């Protein structure tokens, strides 16, 4: 007989994660506009609801009621497929993140992680790479030169920065001896956060994360000033909404991944000395991970409203001639240290 309860348990977790990811993506748009405003001495949206808190709903509603345009010259199937792939992949990676310590409900140990794959990091990387196809297909199918340019930029940028990112991860894998994200997080218990052992790796990783999420200063695929809208120039209505939404979801997930890999995930120094019961401790650990994640989301936005965009040749030079060699050196140093001093 199959164990139905595990299916129910995981389904609930998946649905909750789904909702939380979407809600956070929606409110990231609000946070982005508020932060942009505050950093520019403005106050930002404040009309829809108290302090403008209903603004994401208003924006979403507007998106739904916009006219849905599919250009005549576009490849209709691929045109619709593009945003679907992008959104789906953006939502898929959250399954691998250990959101907190396990809970105990009615004698059942419930892990707050949908799937504890032993190749967790590889899976996330694979899914993120598939996500690029969403952009490429969308830009290609639009049959518009601006969209195509945006798509080409996106693909070359992501391929270039994925290399350095992977190299930065390898250093972590060397020290942790595991590809399993929960293992990596648990090894950082206490204050043994990876960022203290891998500062260079962290720097490379976060720069690449900016590039992977198409955030300024690496937002070349959608430069308004040069490419109208970049790869989503021809998109309208909810398909555009999906693209924009998926970008914020990506930002949320990469913030969570950064927190897990480098900042101890759901661990917080001194959490054990509080002697909380298991379930309360689990909830606290979830809150800890979320506050770390939110910090990084805000960090992403803070950077966006500070830095101007790179030029394309600067972007490529940074990726291939600076970050990749640095990441390789980082791997070598880590390897040497592990061989001779451990």
């Amino acid at each position, binding site marked *: 007989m199959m164990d139905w309860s595990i299916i129910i348990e995981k389904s609930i977790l998946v649905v909750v994660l789904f909702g939380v990811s979407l809600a956070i993506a929606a409110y990231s748009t609000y946070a982005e506009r508020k932060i942009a405003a*505050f*950093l*520019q*001495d*403005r*106050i930002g949206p404040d009309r829809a609801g108290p302090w403008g808190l209903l603004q994401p709903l208003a924006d979403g509603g507007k998106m739904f009621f916009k006219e849905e345009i599919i250009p005549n010259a576009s490849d209709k199937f691929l045109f619709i497929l593009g945003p679907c792939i992008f959104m789906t992949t953006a939502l898929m990676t959250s399954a691998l993140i250990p959101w907190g310590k396990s809970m105990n409900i009615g004698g059942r140990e419930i892990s707050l992680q949908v799937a504890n794959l032993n190749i967790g990091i590889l899976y996330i990387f694979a899914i993120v790479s598939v996500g690029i196809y969403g952009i490429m297909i969308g830009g290609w199918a639009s049959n518009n030169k601006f969209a195509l340019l945006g798509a080409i930029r996106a693909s070359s940028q992501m391929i270039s920065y994925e290399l350095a990112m992977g190299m930065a991860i390898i250093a972590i894998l060397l020290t942790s001896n595991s590809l399993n994200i929960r293992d990596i997080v648990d090894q950082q218990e206490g204050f043994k956060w990876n960022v203290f052992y891998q500062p260079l790796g962290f720097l490379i990783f976060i720069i690449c994360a900016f590039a992977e999420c198409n955030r300024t200063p690496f937002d070349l695929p959608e430069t308004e000033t040069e490419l109208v809208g970049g790869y989503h120039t021809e998109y309208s209505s909810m398909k555009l909404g999906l693209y924009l939404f998926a970008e914020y979801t990506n930002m949320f997930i990469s913030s969570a991944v950064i927190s897990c890999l480098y900042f101890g995930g759901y661990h917080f120094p001194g959490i054990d000395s509080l002697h909380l019961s298991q379930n309360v401790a689990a909830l606290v650990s979830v809150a800890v991970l979320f506050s770390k994640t939110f910090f990084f989301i805000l960090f992403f936005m*803070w*950077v966006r409203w*500070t*830095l101007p965009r790179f030029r394309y040749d600067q972007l490529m030079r940074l990726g291939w001639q600076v970050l990749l060699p640095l990441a390789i050196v980082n791997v070598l140093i880590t390897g040497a240290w592990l061989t001779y001093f451990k």
Partner: protein
Amino acid sequence: MQSLTNRSVVVRKREMSFMEKLYLPAILGGMALTIKHLFKKKVTNKYPEVKRIFAPIYRGVHVLKRDEQGRENCTACGLCAVSCPAEAITMVAAERKQGEENLYREEKYAATYEINMLRCIFCGLCEEACPKDAIYLTDRLIESKYDRKKFIYGKELLVEKIDERIDISKRKKNYTMA
């Protein structure tokens, strides 16, 4: 070559130093700068509730003035229309009839007087041109409308009401701010 002014500066393209090439110190500096703005006073006015105070020289919607006895000042001389760079003003003149002395100050008056508010650039030249103290720009704003035709303001909108005089003292030469 000798420079024509003493303001010219020789531009030098200097190699960046190692610290500058790292970019990171500059990025951190920039981020410190932006985060400081988070705590600065915000300049936004919450518009419909809080209205910005206009400068005394603000040039908004025109008013066609009446004199103390409530007679229209304008004599339809057309100088405002001639001086208008945007060609926003048109008018049709008419002769004052017997018994209309309480309505129009001069013997000739504007039967219709129209300003196209979409053409007007609010330069104030009409006001300067007017020999009869008839037209002034005020600190009122044009209302938004959906129909372009409604932006052509006729006399019913321009001429001030007898019981609702528009204060234009701010536009006079010797006005000083209170």
